[in-house]
């Protein structure tokens, strides 16, 4: 009997239904629950109050990344509130028997970096974390999404979530990226095209020849920012690149189990003829390096473009929002952004802190010096990436260029750990959010790729990397 063609999104969903009842959301089983220090303490307190255990500590994994310093690990955590939060997760992991990579663990790192790095994230899984960038894990063909603390408590207690099915949204990217254009530019272009709310209620599936050509690290960059276009999750169907990346990793299946797993994963890609609720196409050939000018990731443009003029917008609330954003950013409508003076360059975050990102930045910085007016911070996504980068001498390239080479963590993406802009400063940042104050109160953020960030560090102004290639 031929069954109805399904998307990968439907397949993963269907495979995880524990119970369904008329009028109620589906009860969905969660295969992997990632936990960090910021959104979990209240959930563990809730468990304790209820007298409950963690149902499946073997499917739960914890680390610290948000409030941890990126100074040398021999130094203590200076902020007493951050220190207490880190200590609380350590105590919770111990009390509830959860695997934990602590602050001093040699494999600590950003939760969305170390999950894939250790083979925890696998195709077809449901993955959740109290963090909106959980969509990163969608790069492996997993249905991965961020949840709030109440839902963290729910998953700790039951390994399940009550969820309604999302709509499916195909984002097809065909063609090939030109020199100087990166995976980050694909996702920034999507955000600019549909806006920060464009994917609300949806899960993206990224398809097309340009997506197939991306490495796993580049796919993670794209999926990571699905939430910045409003979608709770975004994924790429697994293929040989996925299996090659996963093979042999610490928590990946081994031996006969591996062969069995790959055979199952090969069933996941969307069937021919399956329908999506929404579709959008992006032409990779026509993409330029992208940069944001405003105070949300949807306020972005090609680097050769000019800052838009609010007076050309008809809708009064939209017009006011743009006006407010440009006032915060202190930018003039109609002017190009290239040439804008900057104070800080941040290369890091769960979007762009993997080895290939560091290599891209280093390819620009090699043999050059960063502008003496710019503080340049390079923050690897994990201690393992830090070791790999050092093994191939990238740290020396960064240091020789005058950039800071730091320890792993979220760092200036969210500015909870002391790495932050001062009021009025401009940064070019490889992170995912340019909201007001995101990188420090009063700070102003331009989001861009590692290539663009490195080029701008060299010149001290927002720079089209193609001029340095």
């Amino acid at each position, binding site marked *: 009997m031929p069954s109805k063609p399904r998307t990968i999104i439907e397949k993963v969903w269907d495979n995880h239904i524990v119970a369904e009842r008329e009028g109620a959301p589906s009860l969905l089983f969660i295969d992997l629950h990632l936990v960090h220090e910021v959104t979990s303490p*209240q959930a563990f307190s809730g468990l304790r109050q209820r007298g409950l255990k963690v149902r499946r500590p073997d499917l739960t994994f914890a680390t610290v990344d948000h409030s941890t310093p990126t100074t040398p690990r021999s130094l203590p955590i200076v*902020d007493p509130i951050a220190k207490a939060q880190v200590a609380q997760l350590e105590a919770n992991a111990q009390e509830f028997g959860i695997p934990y990579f602590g602050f001093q663990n040699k494999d600590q790192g950003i939760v969305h970096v170390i999950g894939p790095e250790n083979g925890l994230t696998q195709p077809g899984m449901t993955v959740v974390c109290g963090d909106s960038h959980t969509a990163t894990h969608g790069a492996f063909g997993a249905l991965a999404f961020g*949840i709030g*603390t109440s839902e963290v408590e729910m998953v700790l207690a039951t390994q399940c979530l009550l969820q309604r099915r999302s709509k499916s949204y195909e984002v097809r990217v065909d063609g090939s990226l030109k020199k100087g254009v990166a995976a980050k530019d694909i996702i920034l272009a999507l955000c600019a095209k549909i806006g920060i*709310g464009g994917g609300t209620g949806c899960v993206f599936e990224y398809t097309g020849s340009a997506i197939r050509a991306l490495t796993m690290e580049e796919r993670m960059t794209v999926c990571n920012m699905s939430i910045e276009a409003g979608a709770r999750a975004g994924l790429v169907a697994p293929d040989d690149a996925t299996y090659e990346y996963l093979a042999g990793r610490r928590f990946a299946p081994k031996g006969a189990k591996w062969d069995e*797993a790959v055979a199952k994963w090969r069933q996941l890609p969307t069937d021919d003829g399956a329908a999506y609720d929404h579709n959008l196409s992006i032409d990779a050939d026509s993409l330029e390096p992208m940069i944001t000018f405003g105070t949300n990731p949807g306020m972005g443009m090609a680097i050769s473009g000019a800052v838009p003029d609010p007076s050309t917008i008809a809708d009064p609330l939209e017009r006011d929002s743009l006006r407010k954003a440009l006032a915060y950013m202190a930018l003039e409508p109609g002017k190009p952004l290239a040439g804008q003076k900057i104070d800080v360059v941040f290369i890091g975050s769960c979007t762009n802190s993997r080895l290939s990102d560091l290599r891209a930045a280093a390819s620009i910085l090699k043999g050059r010096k960063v502008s003496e007016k710019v503080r340049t911070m390079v923050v690897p996504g994990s201690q393992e990436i830090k070791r790999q980068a050092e093994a191939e001498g990238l740290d020396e390239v960064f240091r020789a260029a005058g950039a800071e080479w730091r320890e792993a963590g979220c760092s200036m993406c969210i500015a*909870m750990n002391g790495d932050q802009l001062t009021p009025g400063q401009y940064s070019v940042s490889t992170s995912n959010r340019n909201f007001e104050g995101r990188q420090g109160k009063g700070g102003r953020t331009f989001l861009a790729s590692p290539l663009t960030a490195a080029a701008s560090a060299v010149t001290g102004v927002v720079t089209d990397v193609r001029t340095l290639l």
Partner: protein
Amino acid sequence: MKFESTVTQIPVDNIDTDQIIPARFLKTISKDGLGDQLFFDWRYNADGSPKPEFILNTEKAKASNVLLAGDNFGCGSSREHAPWALSQYGFQAVISTSFADIFKQNSLKNRLVPLVVSREVHQQLRDALAANPDLKVSVDVEAQTLTWSGGPVEQFPIDPFAKHCLLAGVDEIGYVTQHEAQIAAYEAERFATLNTLTN
């Protein structure tokens, strides 16, 4: 669940959770004390003194239970500190033309009603408030209505299960644990193939 209130307006589109509560306040390990940090960077001067002109610092707003915001409210991070802060300040509902997915779910779990209206009704309410800033609106979750004197009877959507939980005070974790047999059966079938952290 039924209440009547004046309306506090922050009519800005795409208000993100970093504005609702900045990340530096997320280092807390409790849920308490977040109401004072709501919209902190819009609400206070650099020296920590309140900005008298910012709406949340007015006595009227402090007595109000309903916030009217622009489109796509609550976009950005998954922090549940955002609805915690809004509730602790005193809001029981936020009216907008749309909400970000995670924020919406987090709000419903904290008895904060994410009340979606059409662009037209949003504008009508703003016009009515311009004419009478002391206007009161009534929210009735059971009837799913938003009403005000001289305005339409606006029917708002709400997930039927979420509505049931709000009205009956259902504890969702308690509800899910009643499915123990089904969860165990699912695990038994799945476990053979699922690679876990300990095998």
